[in-house]
């Protein structure tokens, strides 16, 4: 899967939880889930669960700890996909 495809999928996943829609306009690797998109912390777990379903991977607690930005999520997804 290309980086572009992965980012597109990720953008679709986070969109329902985004409270600052302006943040979506500049969605890229540097986008921060909390500061840029204002995703509520209680919804971070939804992002994690949706990523698990979409990519058919399991995100363990340790990986979840660091999933606070698009770059974090991308790295974790790629790592997990490579190990499948």
């Amino acid at each position, binding site marked *: 899967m290309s980086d572009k495809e992965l980012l597109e999928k990720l953008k679709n996943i986070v969109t329902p939880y985004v409270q600052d829609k302006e943040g979506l306009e500049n969605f890229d690797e540097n986008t921060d889930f909390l500061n840029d998109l204002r995703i509520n912390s*209680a919804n971070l777990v*939804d992002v994690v*669960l949706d990523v698990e379903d979409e990519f058919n991977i399991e995100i363990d*607690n340790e990986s*979840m700890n660091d*999933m*606070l930005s698009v770059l974090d999520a991308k790295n974790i997804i790629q790592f997990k996909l490579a190990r499948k």
Partner: protein
Amino acid sequence: MIGNDIVDLNTAALQSNWLRRGYLEKLFSENEQCLILNSQFPERKLWLLWAMKEATYKTHQRRFKLPRSFNPKQFKCEIVAGDKTSILGKVQIQDFSYRTQTFIGEDYLHCIASQFQQKKTVQKILSHSTDIKQELILAVSELKKLPQTKISIKKDRNFIPYLTCDGFTINCDFSLSHHGIFSAFVLSLTQS
């Protein structure tokens, strides 16, 4: 150190589907899941435990100047006592223990976590308000006898907010929180 978290119960019900597969398991220990599922009001119990974890996370992060992290399961909650207006709890993270008190409103839960028993705090909850930050600045200005117009709120590299007056950091223990229509702060009066 002190931290707080406010949960807008109506917003929470709209934003989160706690019954989805994996949701409880990712956030709560087995004991906590039992507490939730055996409760007469499972959803309220869930948000109570969540607020306890979040408020404690903020306190712990400030205390050790930690980078951000999303590790709710590491914060282990215990309910100590409670009545209809507030619930006392204890939250353990690694070897550190924090006290919590959660105030129960009709549409919100407001949890304050602290390292020590807080004898004197100011707390404020606003609904539909535009500016909780201004309220905090006002309270700090009165507490520290500093001009309100010179106080501002900044964030450090770990995204932890702090206050400055004329460019100098104010030594002040506080925490801000927002959710749905509610915003809140807690400010400790005991620190110098």
